[in-house]
């Protein structure tokens, strides 16, 4: 579409002008922000002992604002479902076969990556890390396996796979529902179980995120297994 007609040129120029105006206004807004910033830092650090974990971002994601995280896991699931019902994944046949070296490398790398996934997941309660980074790493392992050994990947459409795909949000929802049933506001963890519940939810979410991202990379729904 390399139409060089004047109409298109004018519309491009107008777009650029409008965007520039938006940019200038935004910059003006940024410059006039008050010097003394307000935030929730102190409130978060005050409540850390009650959160069940030691890392602030993890505490916010899985305790203070856990409801956001629940919905976000559903967003990921819905994106997968969108791809899933659009059609079966097709791996293009023309891809070159990987060399022996790469295959050997992947055989070594994938278990290491899975170990590191577990480590990052566990690290999340203390320092930088958590379910999403760990899930991304797991997906990395899955993608490597997919690229190298496309036939052997145990991704077949089965009830087990589907359970894994909903495990993260489903465990989250079950915890929330159970808490509602015992008359707590949804997702208010009992203090002494907070740490374990968070770890449980994170572990399930890591699995779900990893497999979901691998499937999205592969283009959707795997073929049916027997």
């Amino acid at each position, binding site marked *: *579409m390399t139409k060089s007609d004047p109409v298109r040129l004018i519309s491009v120029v107008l777009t650029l002008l409008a965007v520039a105006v938006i940019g200038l206004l935004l910059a003006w807004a940024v410059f006039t922000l008050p010097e003394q910033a307000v935030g929730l830092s102190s409130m978060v650090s005050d409540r850390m002992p009650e959160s069940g974990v030691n*890392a602030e*971002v993890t505490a916010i994601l899985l305790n203070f604002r856990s409801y956001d995280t629940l919905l976000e896991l559903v967003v990921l699931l819905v994106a997968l479902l969108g791809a899933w019902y659009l059609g079966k994944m097709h791996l*293009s046949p*023309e*891809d070159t076969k990987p060399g022996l070296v790469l295959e050997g490398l992947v055989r070594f790398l994938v278990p290491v990556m899975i170990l590191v996934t577990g480590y990052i997941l566990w690290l999340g309660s203390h*320092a*930088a*890390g*958590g379910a*999403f*980074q760990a899930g*991304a*790493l797991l*997906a*990395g392992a899955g*993608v490597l396996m997919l690229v190298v050994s496309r036939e052997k990947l145990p991704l077949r459409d089965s009830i087990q796979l589907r359970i894994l795909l909903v495990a993260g949000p489903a465990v989250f929802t079950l915890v929330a529902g159970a808490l509602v049933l015992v008359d707590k506001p949804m997702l208010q963890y009992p203090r002494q179980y907070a740490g374990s519940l968070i770890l449980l939810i994170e572990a399930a979410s890591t699995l779900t995120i990893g497999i979901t*991202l691998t499937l*999205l*990379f*592969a*283009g959707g729904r795997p073929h049916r297994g027997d």
Partner: protein
Amino acid sequence: MTPFDWLFDGLLGITMLWLGLRAVSGTVLLSNILSFIGLGMLMALAWVRLSAPDVALAEAALGSGVTGALLLAAFNRLQSDKHSQGKHHDKE
């Protein structure tokens, strides 16, 4: 903030803008995608500079890594589909 810090932040920011521009302009699709992946990497670096290492890790893994992998996979699929269809002229 030392002058070196300023220089670093200044260069980092301007490089990010340049990569952002390259990601959405030009005629070579693959270089758009690679620029975007580079932008994600530098973004992670910028967040380390802003003392937010944990989100920097996530950006490197998700924003740059996973998104990049998805983009490249889709790019491959588009290319091979185009070759297999053959008859359609390329509008690029």
